[in-house]
């Protein structure tokens, strides 16, 4: 046990050291890349081609319309590609997908969720994977970064009617950040054994005289952006547990670092943009503290190995790879669910009740520790607004954050943001069991494990969809008309309603003048404020979700 603890500590220490070393240089790079007044020549050409003026700012309403138009077009194209798959080259002879699956998958990849109701190697050829999914892996992440930067501008700008230009933010996030980083990451992963070819399926004769199918595919390019963009959609059904996606313990650690790098550096970029580096440190500190508590709890649950099956086997190794072991699995799972990635290197459905419950809790926290690229930063800033409001109530002062007054409009928008995903999760889960024919279908077709665990599978699906995570208790058969449609709606509203609220908030903040700090102003870079922020994140989620957790993982784990 002692040795095990040290393995855990050493792995976390490595992750912490890399993220601390990256914090300032990467954060500064992100800030400069996104806010520099200078355009690259190739970017100017692109703006001319698409008919956008890169030097004119957009009002928040215009910014919203650009985001929605771009995402709508993205959904249509990914839908169309799947529905015409049989005519596309490099489709491995696979047919078009059904209407409801294509609808679900299109929304899933455009919303940065990457929920997969299908088994990729049996369903999608290379054309859809590359022209549809890989493209949206980059672009949905770029949209997340754009929204976060627009909100940062809201805090930084004084009495301005604009919050930046979406086309510029999108282009720069893509060309200056995600694309070059992905190429480097893909090469590193290939060196570790991740495949990159267009070979299709190859049959070989084994040494026992049998045969085995060896799959091919452009996996490394997909894998790099899947992690870096906190997307999570696997090239293969087994996702990052597949040896061709994640061949070794060190590639698994590299995957973890790719998921965490940008979300943990964005607070630094935020600090730069609002002109106070300490604000970034405070936010990154809260993210790190929550991450540490969460990963410790999940690891403890899995090492304890509760439940009849882990006890019978002598360890919680069902659904885990031998090369990763328990600690290599739980650190990955925590990272994946507490960012908005949803990649898995072990099967969450087979985790102990409390270990799998932690994956649920990570998503229910709103994915802010550190959350998805961009989405994590704007998510935690919204909770920070709630936190200064609570502090303001306690001392009877008008709350302010970073020199901006938090008035009725700001609090309304922040509250709507906070309420969106829990509503989608709880209503979606409730409807699945409340409508008699739907319930019959869910219970007979979709649920895989009996009892409370089966309930947890459905709860997990809606939690994952509404929070744009994408991981699953994968025993659930989600490729049914009800779940494909309901989860697609949850993903769509769970992505775009919060984005509209955040951009409205950005517009409202940008229009304000700055309030000079006084002796009564609550400082928001202190450990005390960090504690208040972390407390608000935990309390809001706990109050919202405790009853439903009691019906699922807690009931199963405390049997």
């Amino acid at each position: 046990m002692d040795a095990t603890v040290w393995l855990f500590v050493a792995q976390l220490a490595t992750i912490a050291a890399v993220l601390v070393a990256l914090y300032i240089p990467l954060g500064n790079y992100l800030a400069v890349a996104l806010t520099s007044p200078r355009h690259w020549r190739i970017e100017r050409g692109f703006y001319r081609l698409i008919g956008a003026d890169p030097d004119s700012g957009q009002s928040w309403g215009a910014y919203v319309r650009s985001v929605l138009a771009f995402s709508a077009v993205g959904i249509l194209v990914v839908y169309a590609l799947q529905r015409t798959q049989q005519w596309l080259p490099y489709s491995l002879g696979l047919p078009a997908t059904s209407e409801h699956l294509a609808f679900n998958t299109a929304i899933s990849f455009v919303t940065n969720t990457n929920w997969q109701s299908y088994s990729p190697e049996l369903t999608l050829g290379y054309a859809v994977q590359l022209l549809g999914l890989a493209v949206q892996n980059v672009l949905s992440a770029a949209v997340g970064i754009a929204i976060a930067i627009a909100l940062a501008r809201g805090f930084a700008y004084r009495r301005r009617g604009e919050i930046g230009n979406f086309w510029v933010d999108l282009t720069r996030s893509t060309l200056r950040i995600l694309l070059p980083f992905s190429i480097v990451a893909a090469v590193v992963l290939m060196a570790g054994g991740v495949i990159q070819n267009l070979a299709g399926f190859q049959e070989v004769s084994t040494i026992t005289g049998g045969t085995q199918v060896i799959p091919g595919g452009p996996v490394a390019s997909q894998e790099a952006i899947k992690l870096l963009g906190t997307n999570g959609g696997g090239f293969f059904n087994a996702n990052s547990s597949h040896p061709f996606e994640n061949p070794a313990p060190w590639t698994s650690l590299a995957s973890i670092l790719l998921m965490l790098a940008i979300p943990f550096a964005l607070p630094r970029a935020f600090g730069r943009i609002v002109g106070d580096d300490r604000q970034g440190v405070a936010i990154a500190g809260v993210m790190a503290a929550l991450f540490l508590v969460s990963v410790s709890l999940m690891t403890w649950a899995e090492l304890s190995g509760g439940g009849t099956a882990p006890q019978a086997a002598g360890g919680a190794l069902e659904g885990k790879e031998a090369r990763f072991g328990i600690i290599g699995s739980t650190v990955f799972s925590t990272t994946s669910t507490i960012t908005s990635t949803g990649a898995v290197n072990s099967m969450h459905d087979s985790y102990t009740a409390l270990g799998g419950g932690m994956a649920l809790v990570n998503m229910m926290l709103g994915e802010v520790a550190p959350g998805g690229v961009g989405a994590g930063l704007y998510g935690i800033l919204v909770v920070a607004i709630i936190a200064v409001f609570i502090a303001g109530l306690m001392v009877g002062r008008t709350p302010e954050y970073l020199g901006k007054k938090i008035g009725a409009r700001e609090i309304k928008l922040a509250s709507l943001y906070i309420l969106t995903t829990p509503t989608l999760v709880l209503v979606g889960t409730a409807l699945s069991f409340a409508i008699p024919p739907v319930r019959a279908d869910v219970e007979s077709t979709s649920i895989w494990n009996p009892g409370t665990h089966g309930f947890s599978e459905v709860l997990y699906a809606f939690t994952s969809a509404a929070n744009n995570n994408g991981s699953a208790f994968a025993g659930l058969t989600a490729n049914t008309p009800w779940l494909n449609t309901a989860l697609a709606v949850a993903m769509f509203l769970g992505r775009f309603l919060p984005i509209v609220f955040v951009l409205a908030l950005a517009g409202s903040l940008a229009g304000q003048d700055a309030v000079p700090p006084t002796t009564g102003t609550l400082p928001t870079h202190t450990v005390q404020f960090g504690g208040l922020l972390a407390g608000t994140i935990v309390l809001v989620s706990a109050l919202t979700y405790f009853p439903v957790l009691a019906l699922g993982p807690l009931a199963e784990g405390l049997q």
Partner: protein
Amino acid sequence: MIRQFWTALRALLVLTLVLGLGYPLVVTAIGQGALPAQANGSLERLDGQIVGSVLLGQSFTDAEGAPLPEWFQSRPSAAGAGYDGGASSGSNLGPSNDELVASIESRRAAIAEFEGVDPDRVPADALTASASGLDPHISPEYALLQVPRVAAARGLDESTVRELVESMIQGRDLGYLGEPTVNVLQLNIALAETD
């Protein structure tokens, strides 16, 4: 709003060419040029014939799925009928699922009988299906447990086979990442080459 859609459509088309074609083809060119062995699946050969990938686990069973005593055995697999490279998957059975408990117990009994050991000595990785269903590794404990049976089936000295297994134990990456493992396909190829 209509103008926004035209801008969006043109942006998406151009970016699709860059990200959906340019990016993967550049990575493919780098992979095929600089790292061809890895990019093509780390294929493993015996007597010049490709017999699998070092990264993908295999079944070492007869046509009926019964384990062959002259080969080291892999973990249970939920990929298709077992180690199906076209259908990677875990079992997704939950921690309190009676069906899983029953499989674990019957696997324990079967392995204990096959290896001729006490049921308590069968390690957890031998009793559980991996996440991918294509796990190429087993724990050193499970590999060492199989030594006497493999040696007997091949008419080799136990100590020879044991030394072979011990020479093929891979430690943790960097000394602290993951778990020590034995690659079953590599071990079986080494075994075939000993004969």
